[in-house]
């Protein structure tokens, strides 16, 4: 009990999470008289997990892509394809943001890179300020469910460590995220089309010449998603190999062919991207130790028995899970939330007959909303900083989008087939 209070105080004071998790592991192991060098053994397990290689590689690829002008080309290309649609540029923004977030992993980058282009463009086209801000802020986390989302990889890695009987393959997670992600995108598209009927918006015309020009200028980037996704789904690449191909491809295109990222800048980009990776993986490393302690002392089992004695239906459990995850997403970023909570929640969910893959998608779908839920969603602050708007204005502008995505989360949660259909019916 005292230990729990001390941990809570450390959280409130703003101690880095990896220190807090390490504290609990050290405390736990010493209380059951295990030699504390066990923590080093657990940290070393980072080097025993082959898939983890994908995380630094995809992150580096994303950072390099973020430094290039790929974002501008992506917007022009999406505009040439979808700009004539009812809802015009709003729909363009949604698709471009989802795509860019999926490719770059970290969602804060999307608002900074794409927001700079889309926000003024939408303003000029006549969209209401409030709608414009809300759309861009909430689109910043849209790609979380699409491959090669780093969050999905991390969930797979943690679930594989748990040994819960069912296999959680990362390429299955990639398949599982597709339909729920598209569903969210579709709801937001419909909403944007509906909202923009009331505004006097200049829509761009569809012209083959425009599409041709946009295709031509993006000719180097277009094959990339097909190579990666195709390679992974066909089984030709392992995930970490796809990541290596992605890095090589991005470097060759942006640094050598297009020369948009100067070679001189590359060391800084490499360092900055690895500071992010290090921050996430060190939390994973120490929590391997704390999770091991929890499992040794059967905390997840006891927690499940306790919850089971209070809640007996799967439906109630899911409902409470959604509320809990939404709150969690408000104060924790997706990576730390995964590392800390999945070891506790996954055994429970399996106990309630929820498929581990389904749980992963539910988890991330909730977290995605947490990114822009007032008062502390991270993307609200990034957008506030980027567009020089008070955070309170962003609170009001994102609310309709929040409700739409919450509705989507409910559907994703209570209709498991949406998630599992592609996994269960994959080719072969």
């Amino acid at each position, binding site marked *: 009990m005292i230990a729990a209070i001390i941990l809570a105080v*450390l*959280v*409130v*004071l*703003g*101690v*880095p*999470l*990896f*220190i807090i998790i*390490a*504290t609990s592991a*050290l405390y736990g192991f010493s209380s059951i008289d295990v*030699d*504390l*060098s066990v*923590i*080093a*053994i657990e*940290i*070393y397990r*980072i*080097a*025993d*997990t*082959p898939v*983890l*290689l994908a*995380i*630094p*590689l995809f992150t*580096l690829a994303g950072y390099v892509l973020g430094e290039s002008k790929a974002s501008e080309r992506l917007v022009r290309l999406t505009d040439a394809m979808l700009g004539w649609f009812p809802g015009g540029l709003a729909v363009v923004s949604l698709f471009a943001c989802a795509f860019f977030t999926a490719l770059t992993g970290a969602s804060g980058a999307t608002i900074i890179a794409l927001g700079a282009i889309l926000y003024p463009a939408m303003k000029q086209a006549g969209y209401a300020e409030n709608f414009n801000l809300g759309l861009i802020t909430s689109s910043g986390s849209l790609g979380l469910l699409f491959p090669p989302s780093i969050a999905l990889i991390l969930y797979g890695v943690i679930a594989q460590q748990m040994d819960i009987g069912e296999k959680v393959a990362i390429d299955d997670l990639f398949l599982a995220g597709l339909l729920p992600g598209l569903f969210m995108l579709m709801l937001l598209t419909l909403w944007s089309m509906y909202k923009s009927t009331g505004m006097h918006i200049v829509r761009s015309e569809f012209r083959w010449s425009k599409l041709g020009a946009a295709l031509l200028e993006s000719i180097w980037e277009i094959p990339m998603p097909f190579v990666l996704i195709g390679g992974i789904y066909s089984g030709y*690449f392992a995930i*970490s*190999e796809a*990541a*290596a*191909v992605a*890095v*090589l491809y991005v*470097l060759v295109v942006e640094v050598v062919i297009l020369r948009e990222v100067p070679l001189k800048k590359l*060391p800084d980009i*490499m*360092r900055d991207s*690895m*500071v*992010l*990776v*290090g*921050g*996430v*993986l*060190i*939390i994973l*490393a120490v929590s391997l130790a704390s999770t091991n302690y929890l499992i040794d002392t059967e905390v997840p089992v006891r927690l499940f028995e306790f919850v089971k004695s209070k809640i007996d239906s799967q439906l109630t459990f899911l409902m409470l899970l959604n509320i809990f995850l939404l709150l969690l997403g408000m*104060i*924790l*970023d997706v*990576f730390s939330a995964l590392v800390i909570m999945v070891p506790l929640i996954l055994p429970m969910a399996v106990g309630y007959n929820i498929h581990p893959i389904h749980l992963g998608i539910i988890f991330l779908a909730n977290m995605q909303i947490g990114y822009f839920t007032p008062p*502390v969603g991270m993307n609200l602050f990034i957008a506030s900083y980027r567009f020089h708007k008070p955070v309170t204005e962003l609170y009001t502008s994102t609310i309709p989008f929040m409700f739409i995505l919450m509705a989507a989360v409910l559907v994703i949660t209570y209709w498991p087939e949406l998630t599992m259909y592609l996994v269960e019916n994959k080719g072969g």
Partner: protein
Amino acid sequence: MNKRHIVRLIKAVNRIEDWLLISMLAAMVILAVTQIVYRNFSGGGVVWVDPLLRMLVLWVALSGAVIASRTDNHIRIDFFAKYISGKYYFYVKRVVHAYCVVICAVIAWYSIKFVQMDYEYETEAFAGVPAWITELIIPVAFGLMAFRYFLLLMSPPRSSKR
């Protein structure tokens, strides 16, 4: 040793950390790519490359974490700390940094024992490389992080970026 020397020393350490990280990441990219090429042309990859790549992930991750400590840039929940007023915030930060020094030092200490054990048992990691060398990064990284938090404790950054 006066203050100027210390500043110069810290800058040198910064640069060494940066370049170690960058070269390891570059090695990781090159090895991962050549491994794929190799696998496709000769049917199988080089045996020792895969464990080396996994080791590099650990080394790159911990080095990245060390650099994150330099500017106190680790993931934390700063939801509550926002409400601590400026005057107290300064003291709170000192306590937090002192606590980080202790925990990092404890982990570094026990990791040395872990490395020592594998040194004595002459455990092999892969291709004749002794395991203790691949494990060395753990005490080194946590030691460096303890050092970083000690520096932050001694001279907190002037501009309190929150």
